[in-house]
């Protein structure tokens, strides 16, 4: 099955850049990505720029409107994602537990809809 792991965290909840904790945090991501690749479950994954850089778009009455910022104002922001192809939810959760942000943020694991 295919899953996406959406990585959420609040501003200033993780380690600050330039600290030893930050280096450890980034190493955690390198280790996670490497593990996924070695296990052959990695379909992709990217970090995202801050929600400050987001633009939301919608079409109402045939007219396109754009807005500065994310669609919903929430405390936790989507900061990146991984996509896995693995056996079942248990394996997806085990893989997601390697994501360092899980220690202070939240990882939402969702199955990707199968249209095949």
């Amino acid at each position, binding site marked *: *099955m295919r899953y996406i792991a959406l990585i959420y965290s609040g501003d200033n909840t993780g380690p600050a850049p330039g600290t030893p904790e930050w280096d450890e945090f980034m190493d955690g991501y390198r280790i996670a990505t490497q593990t996924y690749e070695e296990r052959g479950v990695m379909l992709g994954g990217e970090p995202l720029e801050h929600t400050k850089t987001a633009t939301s778009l919608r079409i109402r009455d045939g007219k396109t409107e754009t807005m500065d910022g994310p669609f919903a104002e929430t405390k936790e922001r989507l900061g990146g994602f991984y996509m896995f192809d693995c056996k*079942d939810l248990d394996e997806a*959760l085990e893989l997601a537990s390697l994501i360092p942000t899980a220690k202070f943020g939240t990882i939402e694991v969702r199955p990707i809809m199968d249209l095949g």
Partner: protein
Amino acid sequence: MAKDRQDTALHATIIGIIRDDRGRLLAALIRSLGDFDLAEDALSDAVESALVHWSRNGLPNSPQGWLLQVARRRAIDRLRRGQRFSARVPDIEMLMEEEEETRNMPEDHIPDERLRLIFTCCHPAIEEKTRIALTLRSVCGLTTREIARAFLDTDIAMGQRLSRAKAKITTAGIPFSIPERSDWDARRSAVLTVIYLIYNEGWTAGAGEAPIRDTLCDEAIYLCRLLNDLAPHDPEIEGLLALLLLMASRRKARLRPGFGLLSLEEQDRSLWDHALIDKALRLLDDAVGRQAPGPFQCQAAIQALHSEATSNDETDWPQILLLYDRLYRLKPSSVVRLNRAIALLETGDIRAAQSELEDMRSELEAYQPYHAADAEIATRAGDLVHAKRAYGRAIELSQSEDERRWLAMRRGRLN
């Protein structure tokens, strides 16, 4: 007339078979279909068909084998009628082969996959109350209506809760499997918690309230025994079973007809079921001998000390206090801390018990047993004004008529 009676008896037999074997059949079906929802629908179809055919022709040689075979065929029909037929062709072929192989298979050859079923129903990705409902429905075979009544829910709401859960199992890819060794402890404790909560749901209701709640205690014990058979020599499973049996041994003593609940202190201990106590103590001995302590063994050990005492005063409270200390280390929770405070009170340390309660006040303000304990401690300390107020708050918070009556009776004694 005679024919009618025969029909009713047969109908009862059929319902009985379906109820007893539902879990086993469902588990076997999920295993071969790989789809929780489809397995349930197919089994319902088979049961419906059984009621028609068996009423007409009598029971088949192997009712379980019959049900399984019909359910498989119905599953194939449902797959054929389904939207994504082409994608399911390999499934259908596999099912048909399996059907061929297992035709007229004697019932003791139906593989027992219930351990997988239990772990799936109690998967941590499912919300806790739903885990309880799903386990009662799938493993114990209770009807949606019975479960709804036990949880004071409407049939519709409970039905929706169950279908959402089944849909999630399929869509989210919750596996139908026994957890691996690395996950065993955590996943096992999720299962044990579900069983314990089922028992508690039945235990905390009084005799006069919805009789379905009494059966919850029996279902919890049934589940725990089944789990102990399917995964033997696990000390925490044995610990929980011992705990449930020790609680059940006091069933007769804890309800006085027309009077309601009795506390441990008030119970006539000669009414305790001593055969059940012996069985529980042996189980607990086995569990402790495996030298892997856990919270359920610890709780069972506490209840065992109560069971071995001839009266409240003869109870080994210092030992109980030590066990609560250990339990709190294993599982730090405010409920454990509250029970520990009562043990403190019983060892004679009223001052320490009072200060523990003061400490927990803000956290447990909305918890009925907190105020009941507060009232007991205040009574012992001679502060009757405080005790009355605490009983009043406990009565306000209580959900059960019997419990309210008991609390009011305790409050009345203060005058």
